[in-house]
């Protein structure tokens, strides 16, 4: 590291994959490579954005040399934590920003299929249609009555359809065994198994396995009552960050087939676009503007999200609504309030309404008196 002998003209640079993010209250560096977040003080955010590509000396001058130690301390912190490096002004042009465009070789990137004993379609027909859309990642949710053996046989045609990963959601039955679950999980393309409706006493026997194994047991029926995703498990990676710039990370290129064959954007949605047994094939359905309605909804055009520092790290499945003015909003709150910087589970958490924030069909408003009081801004 050349920080110790750097000349005064040395310029500090964040690595291209360490990207500044700003929320209403908090400021972050998103380390997309190491998949970590670093909270930083507002002043450092200001320095890194306003004085990007300026030598340390110039920055100190802007503060009239009243805060030289603080500035040195900031840059030392960033170097020590390997978030950036020093270079000369000639070397600046060597280091471009990370290009953030998103593209993916599939018309549908992920699909959720519900299957019950009465489903009027065959799984292999659904797979065939998905293959035409180049979809390689599927979650299959089975209603009660399917044994592990049956499921294994149903998905055995997968190799032919070139699926990269299948997640299986299976209803518990008394004779289900850990061994057959292990065998199912061992198949190359099975990426995760969820067993639901598992009685409390049976959970341990099914679950006992290595920590890295993605086999999960659930007490409740997660198909009918989906577990609210734990958004605090943010996804920090280049692909999602890029997709989030211009697309809705949950709805973009997603397809849902219900157990009656009904086609939707996602399980939570009400609107259907025909059924899988219709004469039209799926590619016609998904290329329609109506089907793609939510695909291009950006968080930066959505109330609350656009002021959240986790904007590009989150996969939130709430259905967005649009006002005539074009801005988007949600009818319910998620589990993080960016205006006070707190998660639901944290002490001191307040809802948006309690914080003085209103976001609905009429518009968006902040009651600053209320909000500033909570944030101790005086």
């Amino acid at each position, binding site marked *: *590291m*050349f920080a110790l002998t750097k000349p005064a003209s040395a310029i500090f640079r964040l*690595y*291209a*994959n360490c990207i500044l993010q700003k929320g209403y209250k908090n400021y972050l560096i998103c380390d997309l*490579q*190491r998949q970590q977040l670093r909270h930083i003080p507002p002043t450092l955010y200001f320095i890194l954005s306003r004085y990007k590509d300026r030598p340390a000396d110039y920055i100190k001058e802007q503060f009239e040399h009243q805060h030289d130690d603080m500035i040195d301390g900031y840059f030392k912190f960033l170097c020590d934590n*390997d978030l950036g*490096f020093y270079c000369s002004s000639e070397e600046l*042009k*060597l*280091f*471009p920003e*990370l*290009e*953030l*465009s998103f*593209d993916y*070789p*599939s*018309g549908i990137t992920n699909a959720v299929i519900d299957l019950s004993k009465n489903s009027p379609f065959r799984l292999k027909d659904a797979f065939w249609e998905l293959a035409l859309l*180049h979809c*390689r990642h599927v979650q299959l949710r089975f209603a009660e009555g399917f044994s592990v053996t049956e499921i294994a046989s149903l998905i055995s045609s997968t190799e032919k359809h070139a699926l990269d990963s299948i997640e299986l959601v299976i209803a518990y039955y008394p004779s289900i065994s850990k061994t057959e679950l292990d065998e199912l999980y061992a198949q190359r393309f099975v990426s995760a198994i969820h067993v639901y409706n598992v009685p409390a006493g049976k959970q341990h026997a099914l679950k006992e396995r290595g920590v890295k194994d993605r086999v999960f047991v659930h007490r409740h029926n997660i198909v009918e009552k989906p577990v609210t995703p734990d958004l605090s498990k943010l996804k920090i990676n*280049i692909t999602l960050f*890029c997709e989030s710039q211009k697309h809705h990370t949950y709805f973009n290129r997603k397809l849902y087939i219900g157990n009656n064959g009904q086609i939707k954007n996602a399980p939570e949605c009400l609107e259907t676009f025909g059924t899988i047994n219709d004469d039209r094939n799926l590619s016609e359905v998904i290329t329609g503007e109506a089907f793609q309605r939510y695909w291009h909804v950006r968080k930066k055009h959505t109330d609350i999200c656009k002021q959240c520092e986790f904007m590009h790290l989150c996969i939130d499945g709430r259905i967005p609504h649009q006002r005539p003015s074009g801005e988007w909003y949600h009818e319910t709150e998620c589990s993080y309030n960016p205006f006070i910087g707190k998660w639901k589970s944290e002490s001191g958490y307040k809802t948006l309404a309690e914080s003085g924030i209103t976001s609905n069909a009429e518009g968006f408003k902040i009651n600053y008196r209320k909000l500033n009081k909570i944030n101790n801004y005086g």
Partner: protein
Amino acid sequence: MILIISQVDDKTTDSVVNWIKYRHGNVYRINSCDRITITRISFEPATEILFCINNRVLLNTRDVSAYWYRRGLKEDLIGKTTAFNGPEQLNKLLLKYQRENALVLMDFLFAILENTKNRIGSINNATNNKLLHLSIAKNLGLHVPSTLVCRHKNKLDAFTSGRSIISKSLSNGFFYEEEEPQNGLKNTYGLYANEVTERDLERAREPFATSLFQENILKRFELRIFYLRGQFFCMAIFSQQNKRTAIDFRKYDEERPNRTVPLNLPAAVQRKLRLFMKTVGLDCGSIDMIYGKDGRYYFLEVNPVGQFGMVSYPCNYKIERVVAEMLMQ
């Protein structure tokens, strides 16, 4: 039809094939585990070869509109030889003769395939001679680290004279994965570039096996560049902060991996590299370089079949899409 020669577990090829299929291209992939049999070669009106994959799929060179050699050896694609019953010496000669015949056919097949206008890579460039490349690079004005190949300690001593010296593999080296897991883990051992220490010298025989030594360049960062038909996709690897990876970034630290960021390669370096690749007859390859503390770019080596996914993803270059688009032109 686009024809791709690769290996079954090559994820980069999977990605390129996905792009081609998504854009409705017609693609066929041959892996090293497949077996090619030449069915018929006709020379009139034009040369045309009918060849069979795994005794199941019949292809015609006439139908190949684009060709990409990604990885794999010609020798692996040859089918089984027939065993003979006879005197051992004669059997040996007959088996050798069979393979030679098969190679003549295979060589000709690839000569015709690689005559396709739209082609990337060549199966004849599967290996690279580091020494040849270093000397060509030097002649073309690229900086290369001070290099010595020798087998005597006194020569090595004279070369070292107080500098830090590393030893490198002359050929591509290998990775060895233990057959038996120890405590549930199978360790993998690889040949990495290493600093030559006093202890190494003490323990070495005299003379030692002829080895390659280079000056250990003090680096600001390393460069991993994927070159494709005149285009450069560059990545800088900051490995100096981490002692473990300071000499060979492949010996990476899982907990704190080196920083991998996009890099704009200066035009002057690009010009020399383009000339170098033309001189050694490569239209694609992974180039390793060092940007020294002295501000110079040092050429280390080029691998015609090197990985580029490790450059494509961290820098969001989408090289796999670029390859697919070139093949679909």
